């Protein structure tokens, strides 16, 4: 871990993410106003000492909405990736361990899922289920587990030929014991990298969905829908689009930097 933090970029990423996590946790204490409080006479006020980042078309404080939006965006990012990791690891380990027709079947499923452009897959699912924060987390997770499945399967394929696994088999350990005690813990390393990168892209996906009006439903603020609501006042109220845009950019970048750092750290020569 000490080595990881020597990587300057990864360190910057981790630092920013730590701040964001802090903001998300302390949102109720940090936000100067109620993020849902409508105040029509103050609609579209530019940034000032009263409203640091201005107000939106309904007169709500943009800073407060962004702070609460951090919560929504991070939570959606982490849980979506959690769902993807659980599904992906399960499918990957089963395919890799049992092999044969089950492996072929599951890998064709992965290929099929990957052959859909994920954004269309998402839009199709969102059109059927009722969009809420929870469905969005699950839907993003369910459409992004394929990479994890491939990674885990590849790891398991090499792990199951290793002596300790063969030994466990020889001693009569059950399949579930081998999978849970020996394969999964050893296959999970590369998944961490994928997951870190995945959180960034899940946040981006949530923003895209909310920007299209299919994500987090009003009045709950998320970065994507603050951006979406600001679009109608483009040129009149720059703070509504620029600031959430920068937030998304910085966060996704931070996750990517951290993920890349993690990858380098894991691939460093073991002493």
């Amino acid at each position, binding site marked *: 871990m000490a080595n990881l933090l020597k990587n300057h970029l990864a360190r910057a990423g981790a630092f920013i993410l730590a701040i964001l996590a802090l903001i998300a946790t302390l949102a109720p204490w940090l936000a100067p106003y109620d993020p849902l409080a*409508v105040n*029509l006479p103050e609609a579209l006020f530019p940034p000032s000492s009263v409203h640091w980042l201005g107000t939106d078309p309904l007169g709500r404080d943009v800073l407060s909405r962004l702070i609460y939006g951090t919560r929504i965006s991070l939570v959606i990012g982490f849980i979506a990736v959690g769902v993807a990791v659980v599904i992906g690891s399960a499918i990957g380990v089963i395919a890799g361990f049992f092999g044969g027709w089950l492996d072929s079947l599951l890998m064709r499923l992965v290929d099929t899922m990957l052959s859909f452009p994920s954004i269309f897959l998402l839009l199709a699912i969102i059109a059927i289920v009722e969009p809420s924060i929870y469905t969005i987390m699950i839907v993003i997770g369910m459409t992004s587990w394929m990479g994890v499945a491939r990674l885990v399967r590849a790891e398991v394929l090499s792990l199951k030929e290793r002596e300790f696994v063969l030994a466990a088999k020889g001693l009569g350990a059950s399949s579930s014991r081998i999978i849970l005690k020996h394969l999964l813990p050893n296959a999970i390393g590369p998944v961490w990298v994928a997951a870190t990168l995945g959180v960034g892209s899940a946040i981006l996906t949530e923003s895209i969905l909310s920007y299209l009006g299919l994500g987090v*439903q009003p009045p709950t603020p998320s970065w994507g829908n603050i951006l979406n609501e600001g679009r*109608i006042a483009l040129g*009149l109220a720059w703070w509504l689009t620029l600031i959430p845009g920068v937030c998304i950019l910085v966060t996704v970048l931070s996750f990517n930097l951290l993920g890349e750092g993690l990858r380098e750290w894991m691939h460093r020569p073991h002493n």
Partner: protein
Amino acid sequence: MVSVVTRIDSPAWAEGNSQPTTGDALVSASIGDASRLLPLLASDSASGEIAGLVFNGLLKYNERLEIVGDLAETWQVTDAGLSLTFILKPNARWHDGIPVTSADVRFTYEKLVDPNVHTPYSSSYELIDSVEVIDQRTIRFRYREPFAPALESWMMGILPKHLLEHEDLNTTASLRHPIGSGPYRFVRWKTGQLIELHANDDYFEHRPYVDRYLFRVIPDQATLFLELLTGSVDLAELSPLQYQRQTDNPYVRQHYQKFRYPSFGFTYLGYNFTDPRFMDGRVRQAFNLAIDKQAIIDGVLFGLGTVSTGPYPKESWAYEPSIAAPARDFEKAKALLAEAGWQDRDKDGRLEKDGQPFAFTLITNQGNEVRRQVAELVQRQLRELGIDVKIRILEWSTFVHEFIDKRRFEVVLLGWSLSRDPDLYDLFHSSKTKEGEYNFVSYANPEVDQLLIEGRRTFDPSRRQEIYRQIHRRLYEDQPYTFLFVPNALPIVHARFRNIQPTPIGIAYNLIDWYVPREEQRYRALMQP
């Protein structure tokens, strides 16, 4: 009637006396593409706009809201309204050169009442008993009973029999490639991008001055507005925000003409009457008292609208003036809800009845920023009463076909644009509740049913006015909808177009008289093959 149309920001020279010249193109833009271009099947505004330029009805409204002939040269109402005879103009021709005859009118009528044609407009023609083609140019309809909206119903676009006779109208290629008799003829349609129309040289009134009409689809309000400002769009509808805050500058004043007039329609909350909570009139009354319409108009519409008290706007002769827009009365709303059994028994700030909290989902369509904001304000205002409102915004075709048509909603936020005749049989009569029909809230009131039928049967204008005012009043008392507001129409047109007349029916009625002086024309003259 008071003229309520205002014209704003017109450059001083826009009314110059230059002679009309032909040439140039008008680029209009909309956020939604058209879907079906035959008038019988056009049910969205984009399709209606294009079909209106390609086809003609028998009659139309002029700028003073009087009924005048379109394809019809003269018409006669006889037998106490039971018989209606039209004589067609001799020089009306289809775009392929064939004359328009009474056989085409008869054909159109037969298609309107054909149960296999999926038109939402059939109810206005069901009272016709027989049709008689007297000669090439004369046709007579006989009605089973008097039908007051009959004349307006013949503003429906007439279809060419010789081209559609052997076609299934629901699927014919003409839906995407219509041939009509109107001032513009259809040239091409690039789905999701552009519809191109060219001036009809042989149009029976006169050739439109503007050579080409281009209808561009720009699915995003903000992008559309930027395209307007850069000059790639000439005609568009502004949002209240754009009208008040983003077009009030010297550049726009110099290059554009903005218009503002009350639209003939209203925005409302509709309740699903199959839901027992909304069957209780006290609940609907309470909502009407709790929702501050003026705040919505001031905050979301920037004042560009008026509070609505019933289905008819102030400009309609059917409007009932005695109803005062209610002031927001929170205490009374609470009392009404308490009377209906909704009380905050466990003091958690939410109303309950039989242990169930009062919560519902409000659905509306995507792409309309005003509606989204209205939904959020309603949510906020009802929250103060102790009612939890969830908002769900749906893509238009899913919204209409999966939720409205199938009655899968609790409360809906939507708007109606109305025709000039106040007949609202399709919206409020209890028989119009089948899938796809317009009484999707399933409202049923025998008294209103009776009045709607009487209104259709009555010709005497003062008696008719009385009936519709009564309908207006009954609907206000009953609140099948919470009537929110009548928005303003806010079109903007590039300043090089001259002879635009703001009238109570809008600006587009005399489109064929619009022209651009030669020196200001922007698009190359059309090469005739």
